[in-house]
C-alpha cells in the first residue's frame, strides 16, 4: 500500500478532506498546528489569523486510489502552499 502525507495550509484542510471523501479513500488522519518553513517562507502561527500554519493529513490506501487522490489534489496546490510525500507502507490492521 502507499502512504501519502499531505502538508497543506490549514485554511484548505477542509477542502482537502472533502476531496479525499469524494475519491473514497479508506481513511485519513489529520494533525493540525504544523509549523515550518518552505519556499513561501516561514509559517510559525504567531498571530490570530489562523493562516500561517499547516495541517498534515496521512492517507494510506491502494496505489490507484492514492493516485486518483493526488490527481484531484494538485488543483489545491496550484494556489496554496504545501507538499505531498509518497512512501511505501504495509498495513497490519
Amino acid at each position, binding site marked *: 500500500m502507499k502512504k501519502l502525507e499531505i502538508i497543506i495550509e490549514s485554511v484548505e484542510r477542509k477542502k482537502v478532506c472533502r476531496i479525499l471523501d469524494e475519491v473514497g479513500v479508506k481513511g485519513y488522519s489529520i494533525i493540525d498546528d504544523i509549523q515550518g518553513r518552505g519556499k513561501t517562507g516561514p509559517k510559525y502561527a*504567531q*498571530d*490570530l*489569523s*489562523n*493562516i500561517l500554519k499547516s495541517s498534515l493529513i496521512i492517507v494510506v490506501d491502494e496505489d490507484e486510489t492514492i493516485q486518483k487522490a493526488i490527481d484531484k489534489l494538485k488543483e489545491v496546490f496550484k*494556489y496554496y502552499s504545501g507538499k505531498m510525500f509518497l512512501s511505501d507502507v504495509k498495513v497490519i490492521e
Partner: protein
Amino acid sequence: MEFLSDALSNFSSPMILFFLLGFISTILKSDIEIPEVITKTLAIYFMIAIGLKGGFEISKSGIDTNLYTSIINSLLIGVIVPVVAFLILKFVGKFDSTNSGAIAAHYGSVSVVTFVTAISFLNSKTEPYSGFMVGMMALMESPAIFVSLFLVRIFNSEKIASLKSNTVDLLKESLFNASVVLLFGSLLIGFAVGEKGITAVKPFFIEPFNGVLTLFLLDMGMIAGKRIAEFKAVGLFLFFFAIIMPIISASITIFLSSLFGFSVGDILLFTVLAASASYIAAPAAVRIALPQANPAYYITMSLAITFPFNIIVGIPFYYYLINMFR
C-alpha cells in the same frame, strides 16, 4: 495641546503600557508566551462583552433615527475606504490588483480590538457613545472584502480565472463569519435580556473588561513585535501606507460623519472603525479568495504597523481632530 496630553495620558493607561511591554519583550528576545487558545478565547470574550453592553444600552435608550443614518454612514465608509486604499496601492504604489485588493480588504474591514480600546478610551474620558455602534462594527466587517474582490475582478478579469470559484468558496465560508454572528448575536441578546440578565453576567463580562483587555494587549504587543522581522519584506511604501492610510480613512470619516451630525463619541468610533485594519477575520477571507496575494504584506501591515499606530497615537489623534473639526 489636548492631543498631546491625551496621547501622553495614553502612557498612563495599563492597556497601552502592557502592549508596549509585550512589544519590548520581543526585542529583548524574552520568551513570554500567551498560548494561542487564550488569545482566541479572549477575542470571543470581547465580542460577547461589547455586544451585550451595546444591546443593553440600545434597549434602554431606544432605537432612533440616528440608527438609520449610522447604517448609511457605515455602508458608505465600508465602500469608500477599500476603494481609496485599492486605488492608492495600485496607481501610486504600483502593486498588482491582487495584492492591492487583498490589502484594501483589510483596511476596509475593522479591528475589533482597536474598537474595544477606543471604547475604553471614551469611558476614561466619560465621553458618551451610542450602544448601536457595536452593530455598526459588525456591519463593517464584511462589505469591504467583497468590494475589494470586485475591484480585483474589474481591474484584472483575465488573469485570475479562479476568482469566481474562490469567491464562491468564500461566500460559503464567510457570509456568516464568526465575528459577525457573535457581535450581532450578542447585540440581540443584550437587547433582549434586560436589566436582570445583564446584572447576572456583569461580574464576568463587564467589570473585569479592562483587566482582560490589558492581558490581551500584552499578548498583541508580543504578536506584533514578533513580526518586526517581516518589515523588510513589507518594504518602505507599504510601511508608510500602513500609517498614512488610517489617517486618510480617518479624515474622510470625520468629514462624512460630521455632516450627519453624530456625537463626538460616535464619530470617534466610526473613525476608528475606518482607520483600523482587520487582522483576525480578513486574513482568512483573503487567503481563501485571493491566494495569489502575499500574506506577509497584509498580516504584517495590519497587525504590526497599523494596529500599534492606532492604539498608541491614532485614537487620541482622531479624538483631537474630531474636537477641532466641530
